[in-house]
């Protein structure tokens, strides 16, 4: 396979200091645009595909706004569905990116340092998707400004949703700043100054935990929904985030190795695989302890868990989903625990994909839907997403992948310079 990312030899790499930052910054932006839109046939095919899917989603959402949420399968009984399920999962993915940042900055792992931006950019794309999933879930997106502090009425600190708005946007800003600063310095050929980004990196580590904790509080703070009303929810969220995040990044690194003209060492993948070995077990343990508590006591509060795992009064729409998740999770754990798995890319990729899908189900539909079934008056009304909901969700995934592809496309060549990461070395990597 021919590498897909020719680096523009004509683009400027350094020296704009004399003319000041403004001119330099404009040239930087131009370089970014050129890099983002140039590539091989494969690249164009990939981008065209993503754009097409995103446009189908946009059209579906547009129809939903015009005709009302009646075009979804949601009801007054199951009033959140696929959108909020995906939102919850994406928050985890955003937080999971931090699993590269910790070894890179806390333990000064040099090879990880070289590629840590892959995780930070994942956080950016994932948060962009989170925001999109919330917007498409709104009945009145035209009133979005009501939630902007200062303009609208921001019910802070009482409403957990306002906390979520703050932490998610804060996390986005942090990661944009870190990536933007490093790229710009690199473009200028200057050494990034640690005081302009290292404190933000440490802040982002704490912040990553907060976004997922606050998102868990959205649900577990609701006393009327026993399925969510458990103290284990926030820890479970974190454990699963630290499975899905590294899983995605491992696959992304494998893809970059094949298609991007960047050298990536073996250590980052090995470290991430080791992290997953632990987190996937913790995650399974927490699922097991929840399931035990729910079923052993046998109280009537377990109706939602019974619905999820075995069906309730003949309604069993989620049963195939959750067992798929359980099986995928266990298989992924077994694969990951085999010695030397990091040296077998194919096996590792399979394990990562399985783990990723397992968490997507468990932290998505498997978490949101049983909160509503049975309803608060113990009615059992089932939910299966409508075509429009699938279209919109696929559209947002395509949009997120577009953002991620473009971000990597811009980021990696600038980081690597014309000669590739390995040849240039990374001037700032000693700094952290």
């Amino acid at each position, binding site marked *: 396979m021919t*590498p897909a990312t020719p680096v523009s030899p004509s683009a400027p790499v350094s020296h704009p200091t004399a003319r000041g930052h403004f001119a330099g910054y404009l040239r930087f932006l131009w370089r970014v645009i*050129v890099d983002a839109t140039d590539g091989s046939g494969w690249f164009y095919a990939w981008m065209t595909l993503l754009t097409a899917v995103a446009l189908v989603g946009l059209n579906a959402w547009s129809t939903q706004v015009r*005709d009302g949420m009646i075009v979804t399968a949601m009801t007054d*009984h199951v009033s959140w569905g696929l959108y909020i399920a995906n939102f919850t999962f994406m928050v985890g993915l955003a937080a999971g990116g931090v699993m590269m940042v910790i070894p890179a900055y806390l333990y000064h792992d040099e090879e990880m340092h070289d590629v840590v931006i892959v995780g930070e950019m994942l956080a950016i794309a994932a948060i962009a998707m989170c925001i999109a999933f919330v917007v498409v879930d709104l009945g*009145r997106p035209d009133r*979005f400004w009501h939630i902007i502090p200062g303009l609208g009425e921001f019910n802070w600190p009482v409403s957990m949703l306002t906390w979520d708005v703050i932490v998610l946007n804060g996390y986005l800003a942090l990661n944009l700043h870190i990536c933007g600063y490093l790229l710009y310095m690199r473009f200028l050929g200057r050494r990034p100054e640690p005081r302009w980004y290292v404190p933000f990196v440490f802040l982002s580590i704490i912040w990553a935990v907060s976004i997922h904790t606050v998102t868990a509080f959205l649900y577990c703070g609701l006393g009327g929904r026993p399925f969510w009303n458990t103290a284990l929810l926030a820890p479970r969220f974190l454990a699963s985030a630290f499975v899905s995040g590294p899983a995605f990044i491992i696959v992304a690194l494998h893809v970059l190795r094949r298609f991007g003209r960047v050298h990536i060492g073996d250590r980052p993948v090995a470290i991430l695989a080791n992290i997953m070995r632990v987190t996937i077990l913790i995650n399974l343990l927490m699922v097991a302890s929840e399931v035990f508590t729910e079923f052993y006591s046998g109280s009537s509060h377990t109706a939602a868990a019974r619905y999820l795992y075995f069906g309730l009064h003949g309604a069993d729409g989620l049963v195939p989903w959750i067992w798929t998740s359980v099986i995928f999770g266990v298989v992924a754990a077994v694969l990951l625990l085999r010695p030397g798995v990091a040296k077998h890319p194919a096996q590792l990729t399979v394990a990562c994909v399985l783990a990723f899908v397992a968490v997507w189900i468990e932290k998505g539909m498997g978490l949101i839907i049983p*909160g509503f079934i049975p309803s*608060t008056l*113990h009615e059992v009304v089932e939910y299966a997403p409508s075509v429009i909901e699938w279209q919109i969700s696929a559209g947002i995934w395509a949009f997120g992948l577009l953002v991620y592809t473009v971000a990597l496309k811009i980021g990696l060549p600038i980081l690597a310079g014309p000669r590739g990461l390995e040849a240039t070395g990374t001037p700032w990597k000693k700094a952290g």
Partner: protein
Amino acid sequence: MPPSTDDPAPAEGAPSPEGGMTRRTALKVAGATLGAAAFAKAIAPIVSWTADQSVDEFLQKHYRKLSSDELERIMARLEAETKRDYGADVEISDARPQEGVKFGYALNLSICIGCRKCAQACHVENNHDRPSGNSYIRVLEMQKGTNDLEQGNVNYTHPVPHPDKYYMPVQCQQCDRPPCVNVCPVDATWKEDDGVVVIDYNWCIGCRYCEAACPYHARRFNWTKPQIPAEEINPVQAYLSNRIRPQGVMEKCTFCLHRTRNGKLPACLEACPTGARVFGNLLDPNSEIRRVLANKRVFVLKEELGTRPSFFYFFDE
């Protein structure tokens, strides 16, 4: 695949110094044009929808920030819109809480027969969407000998009352510690001085967090624009209660505040053929509701959640 089959030039998409275009740039421009056209087509439904939305509505402030003049103008606009969209002449007013009044509601489970007349009256009084048959009241058929909601059923169709059952209508409990109000990110729902929890339908963003938070299934979402024939529209309306709700916002029982704040009784109470419903001022020691609370064995639903309902249930015998 070779990286650039179409372009041997090194210019890489940048306009050449002469201002001419390379083939690659031309392709990019063509692609962008095509993309823009597809984008315009994709958002066409939303564009047609925004044409129906008024700028005044878009810029409207929160109910509690409105001056009385502004509110008057808004209510006049809403009346005109109802005329335009539904062909009905209605009068929208702003009924305010009365001094020294806090509403309470009690329901006698011993005599309720589960006929659902209250739910029907609510449907008519509150201008609910006709096709969905919506109502703020759900009547649960409960098994005698237990108050376990899990054994209840709302979809009964046999003649009532069934000898082995008793019936429990559930509507908004107008909680004193309402979880629905706490979770709203934009303060679109709040508790008024007379205890009624209301929604500003023109401020709600439709996130449905309150619907997830309510432990009594009391909230309803407008999944689409409500449909009601002009002749069936109840023209006596209030801004915070039964005016026809817009698409995409939350709605709920308001104890018929357009009636009760003007000295009348709720529609569901008037419709009840058995007299199972007792409504009144909790602050008035001589009211009937106070007599019930003092003399009957009263309970509230899901007391363990700490929501402190203003809606009470009691048995006679």
